[in-house]
């Protein structure tokens, strides 16, 4: 079905805009985000991007023309399709259209059909006056949902979070129902110890360490959004991660000890600020979220690596002595990527929390106000999150253990010491 790309409203009360550049001609292929034209008013010029993919099938205006705003600037459809056909097919389109992408899970599809999905704009044209809350827009974009096709329950028909959440695949990010994968690695008595992995890992990475810890407490671990069994969870920025983990841990109904590695350590610290979770102690291993830097090349290289050799080359950066990096760890990471959704999901998280070599989040203030027992363990040779930045950000009441000849994976490189320190921290909280 053809879609119209409209002449944008380039200023308040303006009815016309001049077409100053056209970057496409009839028959060109465009994809979402392509710059297709520039229009201007007396005061400003405006770049027009394609919001859908297809072939340009009509182009009513030429460069230099004065076009009417909110009229089609071009139509994009299937090759050979004409605008008249597009209009007819739009008219024939049923009033209720599925808003969920074909990949939707069965339950989601049922939900979609049960919802009053009135197609307000039958041609799928972007409605300039479309009302939606910012979070509803973000969730819809992340889920590939077209807001124009969702019946809004907010004021004056605005689409709000609950309208989108009802349609979102795998639950809306960071809102109710989006529980993360949480597993008990070892049963026990008392306050559970919950392990939160770092970027690119998953809960199974804790198994070797947990097996060594001689505590009687239940040992649990979870998969962060975009990782492991939570890869379908759409949360893709730091607040979203913290919200999703908080939501999940709330189900434990009480106190927890938290052990976090890298990004997971920053999440653990931020969780102490939620009023609804009693964090009894914190053990932070090579914590992110204290300084500003992260090895951006590593993040990019790690995500982009497709062969075992390439992945091993990047993962060696994680450790001080390459010999401590077991080939099985590299192979397990590679094997997990056989699920084609995993790397895109992790990339989405990476874009949300890192920008190049910068961490876009901070847990430093939260750590300063946390009063429970807290132990920080970091390697002097950490190439991913620099030790000096961790040192600089630590408040005086937090103990720091700096390990010689250890990199970003103290739990692998110095597993005995790390398990001792975790046990000591948990016990000190009583």
């Amino acid at each position: 079905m053809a879609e119209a790309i409209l002449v944008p409203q380039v200023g308040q009360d303006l009815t016309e805009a001049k077409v100053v550049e056209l970057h496409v001609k009839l028959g060109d292929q465009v994809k979402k985000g392509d710059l297709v034209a520039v229009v201007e008013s007396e005061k400003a010029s405006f770049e027009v991007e394609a919001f859908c993919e297809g072939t340009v099938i009509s182009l009513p205006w030429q460069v230099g023309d004065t076009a009417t705003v909110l009229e089609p600037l071009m139509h994009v459809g299937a090759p050979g399709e004409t605008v008249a056909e597009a209009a007819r097919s739009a008219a024939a389109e049923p009033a209720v259209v599925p808003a969920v992408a074909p990949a939707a899970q069965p339950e989601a599809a049922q939900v979609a059909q049960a919802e009053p999905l009135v197609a307000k704009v039958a041609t799928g044209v972007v409605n300039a006056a479309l009302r939606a809350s910012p979070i509803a827009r973000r969730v819809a974009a992340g889920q590939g949902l077209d807001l124009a096709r969702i019946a809004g329950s907010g004021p004056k028909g605005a689409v709000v979070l609950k309208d989108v959440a009802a349609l979102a695949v795998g639950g809306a990010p960071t809102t109710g129902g989006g529980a993360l994968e949480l597993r008990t690695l070892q049963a026990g008595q008392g306050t559970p110890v919950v392990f939160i992995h770092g970027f690119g890992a998953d809960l199974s990475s804790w198994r070797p360490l947990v097996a060594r810890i001689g505590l009687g407490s239940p040992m649990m671990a979870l998969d962060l959004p975009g990782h492991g069994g939570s890869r379908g969870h759409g949360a893709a920025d730091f607040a979203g991660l913290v919200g999703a983990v908080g939501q999940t841990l709330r189900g434990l109904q009480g106190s927890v000890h938290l052990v976090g590695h890298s990004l997971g350590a920053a999440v653990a610290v931020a969780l102490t600020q939620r009023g609804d979770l009693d964090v009894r102690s914190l053990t932070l291993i090579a914590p992110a979220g204290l300084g500003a830097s992260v090895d951006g090349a590593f993040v990019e290289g790690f995500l982009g690596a497709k062969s075992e050799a390439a992945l091993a080359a990047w993962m060696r950066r994680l450790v001080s002595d390459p010999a401590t990096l077991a080939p099985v760890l590299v192979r397990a990471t590679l094997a997990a990527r056989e699920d084609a959704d995993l790397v895109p999901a992790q990339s989405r998280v990476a874009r949300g929390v890192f920008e190049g070599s910068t961490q876009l989040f901070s847990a430093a203030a939260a750590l300063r106000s946390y009063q429970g027992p807290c132990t920080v363990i970091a390697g002097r040779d950490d190439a991913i999150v620099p030790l000096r930045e961790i040192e600089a950000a630590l408040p005086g009441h937090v103990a720091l253990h700096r390990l010689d000849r250890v990199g970003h994976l103290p739990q692998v490189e110095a597993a005995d010491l790390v398990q001792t320190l975790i046990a000591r921290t948990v016990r000190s909280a009583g």
Partner: protein
Amino acid sequence: MAERELMYREALREAIDEEMGLNPSVFIIGEGIAERGGSYKVTEGLLAKYGPKRVRDTPIAEAGMIGVGVGAAIAGARPIVEILYVDFAMLGMDMIVNQAAKFRLMTGGDGRVPFIMRTQGGTGGGVAAQHSQSLEALFYHIPGLRVVMPSTPADAKGLLKYALRQDDPVMFLEHKHLYMTKGMVPDGEHIVEFGKGDIKRVGTDVTVIAWSNMIPRTLEAAEELARQGISVEVIDPRTLVPLDREMIVNSVLKTRRCVIVQEANRRGGVASDIASIVQEECFYEMDAPVEIVAGMDIPVPFNLTLEKASVPQKDDVVAAVRRSLHLDPFAEAAE
């Protein structure tokens, strides 16, 4: 830790008493505060304990009192100047705004002004337009001043003790309706640092930010909303300057909805400024516009019915919370 139930005014008295006992440079002046023990009985008994040099009645001359306080603070003392109504502090605005607030910066940090102005504001019982104002926004606007607005006896005590140990001018704004309210206060040294908000009620659906007498009112609204199945988180910043932005932002990121309640009239108020912070930090996470519940932009009427109508009441808070959840604001009330 053990704790006792105290009235707000008793908690304030304990703070002054304890700090006067610890630090001989603390003194207090004001209208009727010595012989009479103060119009709100905050300073009762202090004259007998500390004598007329440290607990001193003044003539009805606010400009002079504030000038004495600011000057004494610059000279190294720790004065508390009690102003009967915040409305009357307007007489001392030059000393507060042009002297006390600027001195530290203009002396390159050499000079400090640990001047505490204790006063009270807000509506309560038909005392008319010149005795009912909530003027925190005037002080909030001036860089260099600390603005403190305790809502509970424990906060009143802890914040006043902290005020008497730090070195900047403090506008300590009490509320005439709160003096007789009771609450638990921890035994022993109880200090509340500036810039640390307090979550007065934990909730998940909507964040409501309020201070001073709007806290008890908001907590009542939260109770009613809980009966409707709506979970409200009530945040009390306790000090407006410095403001605990982090607590506010974290809460709104959690609930995605924000209501701000202030007794002061709306135009140019602190609520508007907090709303701007919330939208700047949380816009893309929010599911509804920030709601502000504030007083009307009019002088507070003398007539009690009109006075009540001019400032936020419990039902106004309930309606705003429901609007932020895209619910009919009055549906439940009608049932």
